[in-house]
C-alpha cells in the first residue's frame, strides 16, 4: 500500500525521510560489506529485488473477489534479514515510482518507512519469536507474511492520520477512519499473503 505523490504535506515528507534515512543507510552499508566480500551476492540481491517487483505486478485471486498484489516484504525479511530489505525495499519503491507512477518521490520516505522498515522488522520479529516458541514452520511463515502486511497498513494509516487529523476527534478519529477504510482490502490481503507464504514453502520443498 503506497502513499501517492502529493498526499503528504511537505513537513511530513521531510520528517519521514529523516526517519527512514538511517535505516536505509545502515542497510546499504550492510549490502556494501556483503558484496565486497562476496561479489556473487550482487546477482542474488538484484534477482530478489526484481522478483519482488515482478510479484507486486502479478495479480493474485483474492478473497474479496478483486485481485490483489502481494508485497513480499515479509518473505524477503525472513530470507535476507531486515537491513538488506530496507535497502532492497527502497530500490523497489523507487522503481515502482518511476516505472509505474506507483507511490511517489516526496512520499518515498514515508513509504520506505512503512514497507521497507516497519513491515520487514515486524515480520522478522514475529518469525523469530514464533520459531523460538517452536511453532511449526508454516505457522511462523504465515505470521511473518501476514504481520508484515498488517504492520505496513497500520503505519500507512498512521502516517495519513498524522497528516490529516480529524477536526473534531483529532488524531484518534482520523486513525480510525483510515484504518477502517483500508481494512476492507488490507485484512483479506494480509490473510492471503500469509497463505501464499505457507503454500510457497510447500511448493519449494516439493520442487
Amino acid at each position, binding site marked *: 500500500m503506497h502513499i501517492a505523490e502529493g498526499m503528504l504535506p511537505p513537513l511530513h515528507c521531510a520528517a519521514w525521510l529523516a526517519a527512514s534515512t538511517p535505516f536505509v543507510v545502515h542497510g546499504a552499508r550492510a549490502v556494501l560489506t556483503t558484496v565486497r566480500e562476496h561479489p556473487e551476492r*550482487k546477482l542474488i540481491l538484484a534477482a530478489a529485488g526484481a522478483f519482488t517487483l515482478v510479484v507486486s505486478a502479478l495479480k493474485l485471486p483474492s478473497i474479496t473477489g478483486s485481485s490483489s498484489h502481494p508485497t513480499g516484504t515479509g518473505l524477503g525479511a525472513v530470507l535476507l534479514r531486515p537491513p538488506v530489505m530496507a535497502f532492497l525495499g527502497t530500490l523497489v519503491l523507487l*522503481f515502482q515510482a518511476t516505472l509505474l507512477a506507483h507511490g511517489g518521490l516526496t512520499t518515498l520516505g514515508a513509504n520506505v518507512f512503512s514497507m521497507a522498515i516497519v513491515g520487514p522488522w515486524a515480520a522478522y520479529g514475529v518469525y523469530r519469536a514464533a520459531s523460538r516458541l517452536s511453532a511449526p514452520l508454516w505457522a511462523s511463515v504465515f505470521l511473518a507474511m501476514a504481520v508484515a502486511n498488517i504492520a505496513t497498513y497500520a503505519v500507512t494509516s498512521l502516517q495519513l492520520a498524522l497528516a490529516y487529523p480529524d477536526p473534531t476527534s483529532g488524531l484518534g478519529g482520523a486513525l480510525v477512519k483510515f484504518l477502517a477504510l483500508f481494512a476492507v482490502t488490507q485484512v483479506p490481503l494480509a490473510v492471503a499473503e500469509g497463505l501464499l507464504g505457507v503454500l510457497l514453502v510447500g511448493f519449494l520443498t516439493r520442487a
Partner: protein
Amino acid sequence: MSVHVTAVDDAAWAGPWRRIAVGHKVGLAAALVLTALLTPAWPGSLLVAGASLVLMLGPARIRPGLVAAVALPPLAFLVVGALPLAVEVGDGLRVTAEGGLRAAEMLAHGVAGTLAVLLLATTTPMVDVLGWLHRRGIPGPLLEVAELMYRLLFVLLSSALALQAAQAARLGGDAPLRRRFRSAVDGVGTVLLMSWRRATRLQAGLELRGYEESLPTLRPVGRAGGWGLGAGAALVVGIWLACWAVA
C-alpha cells in the same frame, strides 16, 4: 497493470526527451513536485498539473492514452485516500463542506504531484537516473545491484506474464478459487526458482566475460539543452509568481 511496467519505460527510451541531460529533467520534475506540494492548490497545483500535462503531451510527445492509463491507478488511490478527509468523526460520521474542501485540496496536490513525477518517468529511463546518481557519489556496487535488478526485472517479467497466459490457456481462470489461488502460488514459486536460477546463470555468464568485482560500462552521454534549462526555470518561477499574485 503489468502492461504499464514496460509502457512507461518504453516511452522513456523512445521519446525525444531521452537525449536531454538527466540532471535537467530531474531538476525540472523535482521543482514541479515541490511546487505542487508547497503552493496552494489554487492556482499552484492546477498550474503544475497543467504544465506537466502540456510538457508530456507536447514536446515530450507521450501518447495521451499512455498518460491516462498510467495516471489512473494512483488517481483512484488518491480519491479513496481523500474520502476520510471529507468525513468528520464525532458522534457518528458527518460530511462537512470544510472537510470536502480539505479533501479536494489534497486531491489537487496529489494529482499535480503525480503528473510531475510522471513527467520524469515517461521521459527518463530508470537506468539513466541511476547513472546520474552514480555521478552524484552513490557507491558503485549499490548502483550495480540496481542496474542488474533493472535487467532481471524484464527477463523475469516476460516469463511471469507468459506463465500467467499459459495458465489461462489451460482454463486456469475456470478453476474454483481454492485451486486458482494454489496455481497462482505455484506460479510465484516458479518465478522465485527462476529468479534464483537466472541469478546464478548470469553470474556464471558474467564470470566468463571477466567479471570479478565490478561491472564497469560506458555511460550514455546526455545532451544538455541550454534553452531547455532556462525555459524550465522560467516555467517554475512563473507558477510561483502566479500563486503570489493570486494570494
